[in-house]
């Protein structure tokens, strides 16, 4: 089990996860069905496809104060909408490098492929991303103070 | 003899027009029909009974039916509350360790080693009397009781049936008709 015990009073990051409905969201459900435990840091936003997620959405999450972002879709070739994740892959590849270029820490913005049958992998990725974000500490860049 | 005939007919599919019945089942039948009357009142001291299911009679022979009858008769004779069953029991009971000619053939040490399991099982019941409806079991159970220092008495069934028998006024008893 991928369980990360949370210590009392320890800072828990907030991570916005955009999950495609057909694979990664189902994978997250399967993680639950299989009772794989992972840290309570994710706030999942269900989107039809990883191809639905734009740079704007990711920046909006950061601007709103998310300590991290995860975008996850179907594996290449498995897209329910044929090619959405291929386009997404190009957009995200460019965006991720670009955000790193302006000084956003590499581990803040994460992308993964998780299929509907990969409940365990989902829990692993959720744990991994949380740990990476925890190492970075709370997000400061691009966080708008309202 | 009983088992050898039974199994021989069964294994070689030999046609026959008779059935095999143990006297125990007949006791039970007569008790149920009221033709035989028993009263456990004799057992004032509350002697506790348990049982040995002989392999040839039960497990390999006539099955659980006869084992059930055996218990039925004992309970009638000694009182329901004075019967303590063994684990495992009936078809699933352990071999006494005295069969297969081992009582007659030497190898005493081995025989008693096998019999230790039976001894432990019977001891665990805490019974005062062990009923063994088989001469072979009877001899073996007596032997292991002596050897391992058991406290029970090993007997056949009829000894106790006699004690409990009620002879009513009509004088009619099973077997006399």
């Amino acid at each position: 089990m991928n369980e990360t015990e949370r210590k009392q009073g320890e800072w828990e990051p907030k991570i916005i996860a955009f999950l495609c409905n057909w694979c990664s969201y189902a994978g997250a459900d399967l993680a639950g069905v299989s009772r794989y435990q992972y840290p309570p840091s994710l706030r999942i936003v269900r989107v039809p496809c990883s191809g639905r997620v734009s740079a704007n959405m990711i920046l909006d999450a950061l601007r709103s104060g998310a300590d991290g972002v995860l975008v996850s879709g179907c594996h290449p070739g498995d897209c329910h909408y044929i090619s959405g994740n291929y386009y997404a892959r190009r957009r995200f590849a460019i965006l991720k490098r670009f955000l790193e270029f302006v000084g956003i820490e590499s581990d803040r913005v994460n992308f993964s492929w998780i299929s509907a049958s990969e409940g365990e992998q989902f829990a692993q990725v959720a744990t991994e991303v949380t740990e990476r974000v925890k190492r970075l500490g709370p997000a400061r860049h691009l966080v708008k103070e309202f | 003899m009983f088992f050898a005939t039974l199994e021989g007919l069964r294994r070689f599919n030999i046609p026959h027009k008779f059935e095999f019945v143990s006297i125990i089942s007949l006791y039970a039948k007569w008790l149920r029909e009221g033709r035989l009357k028993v009263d456990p009142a004799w057992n004032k001291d509350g002697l506790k009974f348990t049982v040995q299911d002989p392999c040839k009679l039960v497990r390999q022979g006539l099955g659980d039916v006869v084992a059930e009858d055996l218990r039925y008769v004992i309970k009638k004779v000694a009182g329901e509350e004075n019967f303590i069953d063994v684990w495992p029991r009936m078809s699933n009971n352990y071999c006494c360790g005295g069969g297969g000619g081992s009582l007659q053939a030497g190898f005493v040490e081995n025989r008693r080693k096998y019999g230790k399991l039976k001894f432990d099982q019977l001891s665990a019941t805490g019974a005062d009397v062990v009923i063994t409806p088989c001469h072979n079991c009877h001899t073996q159970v007596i032997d292991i009781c002596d050897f391992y220092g058991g406290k029970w008495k090993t007997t056949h069934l009829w000894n106790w049936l006699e004690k409990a028998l009620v002879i009513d006024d009509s004088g009619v008893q099973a077997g006399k008709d």
Partner: protein
Amino acid sequence: MSTMNEKITEELRQKARQLLESGRVAAFLGYASGSVPMVMRPFVARTPEDADRLEWNSFCVLNLANYLPALLKSFEPPRRPNEPPPQGPLPKVGVVATGCWSRNMVVQIQENQVERERLVIIGISSRGMVDRKKVQALIAHRDVTAVKEGDNTLVVAGPGFEEEINRWDVVRDNCKSCVHPDPVIFDDMIGELKGERDLPDRFSQVEEIEALSAQERWKWFTSEIQSCIRCYACRNACPLCYCPTCFVDDSRPQWVGKSIDSVDTAIFHILRAYHCAGRCTDCGSCESACPMGIRMRILTKKLQKDVLQLYGIEAGMSVQEPLPLTTYKKDDPQDFILTESLKGEKK
């Protein structure tokens, strides 16, 4: 002996006049002198006489492609939104184009902003345009009243001074790192095609920043944009920025605050640049237009570098080739995908 630019200007006027006289084009888009030195303004010649006001020199920095859609539209008969487009050929427009501008026109054609058949492109292979801010820096920001341009020199004059400057020293960064000075599409040429330039260090400006730590990069980025006044001159000078409502102006949803709050400014610059990903030709208009001297071109140059490195595509090199973000290959690089990199670690 006239200079190269004088010769080009002459030829340009002549070709524009011919086009206008023959009626082949309804207007010709080029440059005319502005009211101050070192600033050329886009100029539309509508009559053969206007053609004589066209000029060509090292200060033609604003990308003419930016003005084409509106200019073309001005020659279309007015119509309601759902009416069919007018039948028959529409008036054409002539335009002068160097490498980067022509590549922008390619992108515009791909994005349905202009129609190739309505353009008559006079190509000029670029020698690089001058960065006015570099000149001013060299002369300690004194006022300039006149600039005389030779083939390889600039003579800058002002009250009480006249200095000669090596032209290449003050050429814009984007032009110095340009490898495609030749126009990609044209109908006529002035001068010869020069061919590709071999510049192994064309992305050195980007690489220097890439070499920094995340913290240092953030420091660089924020200090670079801290003087931004959100005037949007960079956006307006850009031929790629043609949305009727720019995301910065949108209020539902509000992608980014409208203030000069540092986060809003940062997001503005990130998204403005990102919207140019795979489309930007590094024409430098944005930087040239910026009143605050912000080097936002480095952002788009980074995107250009990555798109080239990841997908082998440079914007505007071919009308046929799709833009990088509207296509994909099944084996596009994906080492940035966490599940893929974790897989790698396990091996």
